[in-house]
């Protein structure tokens, strides 16, 4: 079989990217596969191509709605029409239309919550699923930085589907997490493809300040003397707004982006960034998915990120074009405390646990009443069906210990005087094969390659009247 020909005929690409072919061949020969591929390395092709060759449908379980929407949009953009997504955005009418024709779709995206609903399960039982894809499979790990309890339930669906072959995809997983993926997805002897994580064109820098004010001042100077495009990751929504405000005041074209904004506004910020109308996006970790910009030159972390995995993923958005890009980590004294609270804030509190255990009808109203947060609700509800209240508290305590360990790992970045690259790889149980000439702050950095100075970008042609703007949009 000529896979290259299928690749070209179906998607117009002439060659595979590293890893894709190995993974696809194993899938086609009927094996289960765990593929650890960095974002931007064409993960989705690993199931797109098999879908062209296998009979029946490919079922892709995707934990994040925004990610799912982006994948559907990307597939459609490639001209794929036979694709649907089953998630909470569908209204009853749309959903029944989709479910009644389920077998006719080549790609079916689904959220884990939907996957386990009895009616949907029965519909899935009736059709032929040739491949089950667990996207962002690290979410399965309760020790992971992005644990989604619903994800553990994928195993419930496997017998219903007649045990199709399984493809688990993730950008970042430690050996421990890989083991958990195997266990929970019940794949005993998968083929594991692990792409080297190291990105040679990214150099790591770190700047330390004695207080937050100095840090902001440095950032102001930096953006005034360097061009984007770049992403500045802030720890909180508020901070992302503040930094954006600061940049705008300095006459730099920047916008903020976070999960609290309405959907349309978020799309607009992505559009502007993609168009080059913005130089910087100041964002929480919500920004990144669905952003396909190859020439991001800077990723700046305004404070210590909450996990090594998250850090590596965010940094990995820079320099997709292969040209030099700089990852700058900013630190000022006292940031650790904020880190601690950010990390532990995600976990359910004792009070939330006991409220959910005390509620008789599941406790959904606790969220709307503002007594329990959405994520806490999701996590505790899962454990409630399996553990007692005391056991759940212990479970969460263990997670807390694990999270503190994780944050210790990331905090170490600030204090080490050895190689950043080596340390990061070590966190993923990988060995460094060779160092690029410009490696990291501790190994010597020639900034001239990364700090290209500031190109003066012509101010966006300001359209004065609405008629002008319409003419610009529709010059017909």
């Amino acid at each position, binding site marked *: 079989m000529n896979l290259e020909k299928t690749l070209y005929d179906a998607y117009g690409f002439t060659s595979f990217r590293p890893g894709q072919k190995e993974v696809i061949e194993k899938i086609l020969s009927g094996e289960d596969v765990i593929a650890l591929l960095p974002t931007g390395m064409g993960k989705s092709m690993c199931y797109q191509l098999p879908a062209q060759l296998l009979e029946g449908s490919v079922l892709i379980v995707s934990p994040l709605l925004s990610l799912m*929407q982006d994948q559907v*949009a990307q597939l459609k*953009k490639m001209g794929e029409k036979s694709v649907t997504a089953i998630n909470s*955005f*569908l209204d009853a009418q*749309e959903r029944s239309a989709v479910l009644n024709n389920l077998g006719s779709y080549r790609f079916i995206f689904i959220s884990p919550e939907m996957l386990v609903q009895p009616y949907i399960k029965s519909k899935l039982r009736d059709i032929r699923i040739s491949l089950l894809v667990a996207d962002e499979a690290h979410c399965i790990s309760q020790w992971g930085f992005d644990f989604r309890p619903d994800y553990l339930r994928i195993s419930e669906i496997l017998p219903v589907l007649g045990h199709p072959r399984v493809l688990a995809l993730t950008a970042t997983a430690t050996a421990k997490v890989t083991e958990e993926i195997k266990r929970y997805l019940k794949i005993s002897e998968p083929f594991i493809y692990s792409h080297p994580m190291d990105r040679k064109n990214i150099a790591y820098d770190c700047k330390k300040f004695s207080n937050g004010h100095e840090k902001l001042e440095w950032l102001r100077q930096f953006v005034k003397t360097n061009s984007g495009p770049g992403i500045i990751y802030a720890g909180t929504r508020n901070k992302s707004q503040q930094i954006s405000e600061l940049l*705008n005041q300095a006459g730099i074209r920047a*916008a*903020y982006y976070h999960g609290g*904004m*309405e959907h*349309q*506004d978020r*799309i*607009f*910020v*992505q*559009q*502007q960034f*993609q*168009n080059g*109308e913005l130089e910087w996006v100041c964002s929480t970790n919500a920004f990144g998915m669905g952003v396909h910009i190859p020439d991001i030159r800077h990723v700046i972390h305004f404070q210590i990120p909450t996990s090594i995995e998250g850090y590596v993923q965010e940094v990995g958005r820079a320099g997709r074009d292969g040209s030099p890009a700089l990852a700058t980590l900013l630190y000022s004294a006292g940031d650790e405390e904020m880190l601690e609270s950010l990390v532990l804030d995600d976990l359910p509190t004792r009070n939330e646990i006991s409220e959910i255990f005390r509620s008789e009808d599941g406790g959904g109203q606790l969220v709307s009443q503002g007594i329990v947060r959405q994520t806490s609700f999701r996590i505790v509800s899962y454990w409630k069906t399996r553990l007692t209240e005391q056991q759940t508290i212990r479970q969460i305590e263990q997670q807390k210990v694990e999270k503190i360990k994780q944050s210790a790992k990331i905090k170490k970045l600030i204090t080490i005087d050895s190689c950043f690259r080596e340390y990061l790889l070590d966190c993923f149980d990988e060995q460094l094969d060779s160092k690029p000439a410009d490696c990291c702050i501790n190994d010597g950095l020639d900034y001239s390659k990364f700090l290209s100075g500031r190109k003066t970008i012509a101010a966006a042609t300001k359209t004065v*009247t*609405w*008629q002008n*703007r*319409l003419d*610009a*949009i*529709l*010059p*017909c």
Partner: protein
Amino acid sequence: MLFEDILITLLKAVDGERTISSPYHLLKGKKSGQTLQDIGYYKLHPYFGILPKLEKDVYDRAVQGLFKKGLIVTDGEVVRMTEKASAVKLAPTLLNGWKFRGNEQLFMARLSLLVQTLSHIHQNSRVFDPVVIAEDTQQWVKNYLKKINYRDSASCKNIKEGIVQSLNAVEVDESNKMIVLQRLSGLKIGGLTWEQIAREESRSIIDIQVQAVETLHGWMEVIEKGDFPLLRSLLDGVIQHSALTETARRTEGYFKNGRTLEEIAALRGLKTSTIEDHFVELAMNDPGFDILGFMEASLYAKIIAVSRTQNTKRLRDIKENVPEASYFQIRLALATKGEIQ
């Protein structure tokens, strides 16, 4: 219209008869009996549901502003306008929330995707990330494009011309029309976020949003009434022809088949008080509603007279003067706005 002016308008109407949160529910478009009734009693149709995503803290801050400016004061549970507020001149509004029911968002979504598509296609760019991801809107726009022969540059010109002419006819400030245009995007031109528009205009986000809704309402009205066939299609299914809520419409169906209030409640498995709410809604919206099936003409006249002479629409005040009437009868009578002779 500015957000503060809307609050003043709403609070003026219910002056001394409602709590401070009643305008909030109305602006959010809450479909409770109380809110729906207030719309009819106080003629607040323009403002119903114009800000479905209004956040409580934004509302509270604006209300605090009114207190600080000395425009309103609390009086027990209710709010009263001060004399200073009575002096505030309010301009007429193009808002028509009751008619459009938040569907200006659907109109805008269709228009956004249509304009974005035309912008790309007519500049030889075939692939782009759609600005609207809702499946049904995408499907709708695809069908529409097929019908208008969209690759033809004449179609693009016609649509653009239609936009210019119809928007020209909308009687709002030019800067408000700009807001709507800034929410549209095309090849290499991104849409602007509310915050970006607000910063550029040095106004608050909520004011920008209100002005966008008002402009859209005015615009949709122009398109509906005028001769803009290409744009008129964008309103298909957008303008609701019955002003009733879905559930009230079902109750109406049973009622027209001769069922009594109690029977409808039993058939639908709803509380009689809920069905009463539906009747009030019917009375409010249907000029032909026969109120005399629910009370003697003399009782009706008495309720209306008390409401007028005491200048009140508070149920409790009227009940004190007309103890023989039930609350339901009072609500029904008020719902007809005293227009029945």
